[in-house]
């Protein structure tokens, strides 16, 4: 039983990583109704920028908001420069560009900062939360920040006009234009926000997994799994899904001998397939009801 609780708690801690990334995935899905395969690489790039600023001696709590702002502008710019010109192109063209962005961010990070791993400090310290705790101060801090981001997102979409306009633009672009919403601007804002949330995720994840150009590969996959499990239309679902993926992954690794440490990643894929088969809207996702 002790082992079980221990594994659940440590799964919860890893789940915090996935939850944060899943939020970023949900954000971009909200804006463009696709999953951006380069989301993880963009987050990784943001993290390198944070590392660079820290290396230049800026204090952590100045770097944190600065990187979020830079990433927001970066995401916004990617949409304007790369995706705006192909607005009406078929989905496949978009996917090709996602993959291109993936390669570009990945290689540029390696080109600029080389491929050796770098340590990113944690603002929350790296000891256990209390003596003998299965969860460290950093993990606890990361979960806290994820929750804050979640609440901010929820409030933004629920209570602000801009949030409502973004939801409208995603739900029915033609109609949104007819009430005066600048739809293409909303898409760009969605990219900016997804990129900013990705930066938060990257900077918080880096102290755990170390910074290198491929650090986000598997994490993005778990983030996708979390978002799909919780529901791609629901930020709260994404966070819940992220935690669940962390816990499931840990328990499966502990109790199913075949899986062990090496076969954990397929669990994410297995979860995605299972959710799509059994409950495609995800745990908290909204099923769209439509009368005709």
């Amino acid at each position: 039983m002790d082992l079980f609780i221990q594994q659940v708690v440590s799964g919860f801690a890893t789940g915090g990583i996935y939850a944060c990334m899943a939020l970023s995935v949900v954000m971009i899905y909200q804006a463009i109704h696709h999953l951006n395969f380069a989301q993880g690489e963009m987050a990784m790039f943001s993290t390198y920028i944070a590392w660079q600023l820290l290396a230049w001696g800026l204090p952590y709590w100045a770097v944190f908001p600065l990187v979020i702002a830079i990433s927001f502008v970066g995401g916004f710019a990617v949409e304007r420069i790369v995706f705006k010109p192909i607005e009406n192109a078929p989905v496949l063209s978009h996917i090709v560009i996602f993959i291109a962005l993936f390669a570009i961010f990945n290689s540029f990070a390696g080109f600029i900062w080389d491929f050796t791993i770098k340590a990113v400090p944690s603002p929350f310290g790296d000891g256990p939360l209390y003596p003998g705790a299965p969860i460290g101060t950093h993990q606890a801090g990361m979960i806290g920040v994820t929750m804050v981001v979640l609440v901010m997102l929820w409030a933004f979409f629920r209570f602000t006009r801009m949030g409502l306009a973004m939801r409208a633009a995603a739900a029915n672009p033609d109609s949104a234009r007819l009430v005066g919403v600048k739809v293409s601007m909303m898409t760009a804002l969605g990219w900016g926000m997804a990129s900013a949330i990705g930066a938060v995720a990257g900077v918080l994840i880096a102290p755990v997994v170390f910074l290198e150009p491929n650090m986000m590969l598997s994490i993005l996959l778990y983030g996708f799994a979390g978002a799909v499990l919780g529901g791609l239309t629901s930020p709260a679902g994404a966070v819940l899904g992220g935690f669940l993926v962390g816990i499931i992954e840990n328990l499966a690794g502990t109790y199913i001998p075949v899986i062990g440490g090496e076969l954990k990643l397929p669990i994410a894929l297995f979860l995605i397939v299972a959710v799509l088969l059994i409950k495609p809207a995800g745990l908290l996702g909204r099923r769209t009801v439509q009368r005709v």
Partner: protein
Amino acid sequence: MSNILEVRGLEASYGDLTVLRGIDFDIADGGVTTLLGANGAGKTTTLRAICGMIRRKGEITFEGKRIDRMSTENIVRLGVAQVPEGRGTFTTLTVEENLQLGAMTRPNDKSIHEDIEKSFHFFPRLKERRTQQAGTLSGGEQQMLAIARALMLRPKLMLLDEPSFGLAPLITKQIFEILADVKREAGVSMLIVEQNASLALGIADHAYLIETGSIVMSGEAKAIREDESVRASYLGY
């Protein structure tokens, strides 16, 4: 009476298919104008062209200002609201959020809330369903919501695309009674595009007849209603 909208030589096409072949018409300020025609005559395309939702050629002047080069969002900001084909409901948002969206271009103040209450007064059915997902409303309720949403803009000109489409005769009658109220109380100019000619001519001051992309007849609604050929092909008696 002066004209709020003047259209000259409007052309539009989808790819190789020409839909509008240079049409001219006016909408009088404060009046209701109707554009009648059969399926595929170009009615919806005309509305989409006015709002800049498709490529168009020709001159469109709204309150003396050329709008044929403007984007949809900016045309809306001038006070042109459209109740689109298929009602344009934001199905995943609540009824109240749909109404708030109608006022998106207005400054954010108390008057928006007052106008929402006013719409609920006009459409009590919507009030009962204010927190429901709009996609769960019946066709008639969605049509009411579309009209209420358009009114939230406090428009100077309202463009309505087949408000009777897919509705039971009784509901259609209600909708047109509401439009008559709107005409009387709010003084909004309207362009109503319809297949149901007798209903549309009942509310309109002026009518145009469109056939395969060209205006073939225009005149006072009353005169059009009494015209023999119109009666035979559109009114069916």
